[in-house]
């Protein structure tokens, strides 16, 4: 088989009707541009962190959006917040804002004020 430089992911399944979408909906409120995401994966393809480790930002925001929050907090910490993903996104999704908001929803920080 010819090598196209990418692999096809295993299919995952979960029950959307049992998913808790509260945080996902909050995320959409905070970052309205995310509604325009088409899941193209451009963000993950350019990602700096991904050049070193298996971190897939598209997978992270996609699963978050579907209410599957398991292990995402740890995954998200790999991001360096460099912003390349925001710059390449063809739909103008503000990914840096998306990432910060996901981090804050998953691990609310103790702001000093």
């Amino acid at each position, binding site marked *: 088989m010819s090598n196209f430089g990418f692999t096809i992911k295993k299919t995952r399944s979960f029950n959307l009707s049992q998913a808790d979408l509260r945080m996902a909906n909050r995320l959409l409120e905070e970052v309205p541009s995310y509604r325009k995401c088409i899941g193209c994966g451009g963000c993950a393809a350019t990602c700096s962190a991904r*050049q070193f480790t298996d971190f897939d930002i598209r997978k992270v925001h996609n699963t978050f959006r579907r209410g599957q929050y398991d292990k995402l907090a740890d995954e998200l910490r790999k991001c*360096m917040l460099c*912003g*390349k993903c925001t*710059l390449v996104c063809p739909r103008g999704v*503000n990914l840096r804002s998306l990432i910060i908001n996901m981090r804050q929803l998953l*691990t609310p*920080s103790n702001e*000093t004020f």
Partner: protein
Amino acid sequence: MANFHPFVVPFVLGTIGLFVICGYKYVRWIKQFDRKQQALIRKNMFSTKILPAIWEMFCECLLHLRISKKNWRLGYMHRSIAFGWFLLIVVGAIESRIGIKGPFHFWCAIFYRFFHHNIPANGTEMFFTQLMDLILLYVLSGIFLAMLKKIHSRILGMKRTTKHTIMDTTVKISLWAIFPLRLLSESVTARLYANGGFLTQSIGDLFSRPVAEFLELPLWSLYSIALCVFFLMMPFTRYMHIFTEVFLIYFRKLGLRDSVKMTGYTKYELSACSRCGMCIDRCPLYNTLDINDVQSVYLLRNLRNLEHHQDILAAGKNCLMCHQCAEDCPVNIDLMSIRRISRDKGDTDMADNYRYLDPVKGFNAIGRVAYFGGCMTQLTPTISESMKTIFDAAGVKYWHLDGDRAICCGRPLMQQGFNKQAADLRRKITELIGSCNATALVTSCPICYNTFKHEYNLTIPVYHHTEYIDSLIKSGKLSVKQSDTTFTFHDPCDLGRGCGIYDQPRAVLKAVGQLKKVSAEKENSVCCGMNLGNTVLSLEQQTKLRDASLKVLTEPNPDVVVTACPMCKKAFRHGTEVNVKDIAEVVAEEIKK
């Protein structure tokens, strides 16, 4: 009691209150200094650094020279009130020491003319009387301008004045009342005892004797009350800046700086802000997007009062960190650090998040220059290719440190308040650079450059590529041709205002072509809107900011708009018909073969 009258009581109480409250606050803040700041104070408290501090206090707290440099009318207004009032106190103290007979109390200096009536028409005392009238006139001219500014800020060359709270407005009215009341009281007394100078005597003579007799006590009492109100409200309002700036200048000269968390030093900075509003006028968010509640003056006020928790968080988020306000602040408050403090995310997440960088081994680059393009340069590969062409042409051996794998310098994390994480990242990069034995670090991204310069302690010199190319041309290692192409240059925020690099890119562009001036450049260059400091602006808003910046750059009809940051280049490229290039690309095209 001689030389006493009940009307002085409000003034005396006000003065005592003022010193007690200020003293309490200042001591409390000093206790909140962090260890590093305390150590610096102990080390430098009585060193020679005090002398320049005193000089700066004189120039800034009294003469307001920095404001004058930016806007002479505003400078005159501040100077006449501050320096004039200072002179009134000092000269008044001398005058009353000479004149007062009998017991001397400190209020005698303030209400001198009420307690001292016989002034010989010639001699020292009359000289002081005339001098005091002149100084009072000087202060009044400033108060008059302040009133004009409230009515119409453009008269004083400002687009907008700060929106004040009720407290701030009340205390301002009491300040404005002090000097006209002093004028009237002294005038009325002059009518009765002929002890006035050219100003007070002429105004006093307009009153009839019975009217003057009737008004004398009420006017002196009102003057005393106005002083009392002002003194008691001062520590809780923006006028706290009058004393606080003195301390801030002292601490700054001792070497104290903001930390990443709120410290006592930050508290001094917050209170040293006079809410003059000079940070509003050139803020791109205000100028282009009409957003008028996030500017530094409001952030500082909210942080100081700590009453609008949500406002602080919201205002803290929406800012480009373009350094413009920090550049314009006449008190030199470190506004970018305070913005970061307001975004501090706390220390909940203590794990080392970037363990995946550990196995990244340095290349042995002895005798070579390490070239760090920066993440964004990965998205604009022509910049790094041009740099390689330049290195080769100049015979410089280099190692492209982040060619296929980009490590972020950590600034974006830091700007968003993830301080612990940014520190982890910095440690990894320091190790990596330390292990490769390179002779210097050259970067193409101003954001990285600013970070390497100010947040890292690297043992090798760091250059931005504009600086580096400039030195290559100056030393003759790189020969370039001068073409007829015309350029305008955009000063990226982090390179210009952030690091003070203005001359090198201009020298380079003059060597390879014709550089045209633009209307807002160097310190006043307009942010391209893509600054990583902001995460909340929408794409439409960023586009508007970009267009405002491009309007300035394309005005003189250049052949090429040149920038020195991959981010600005990306921002501009789709916004104009004019060619947009990075300075490295321009130079690479003009190398003499």
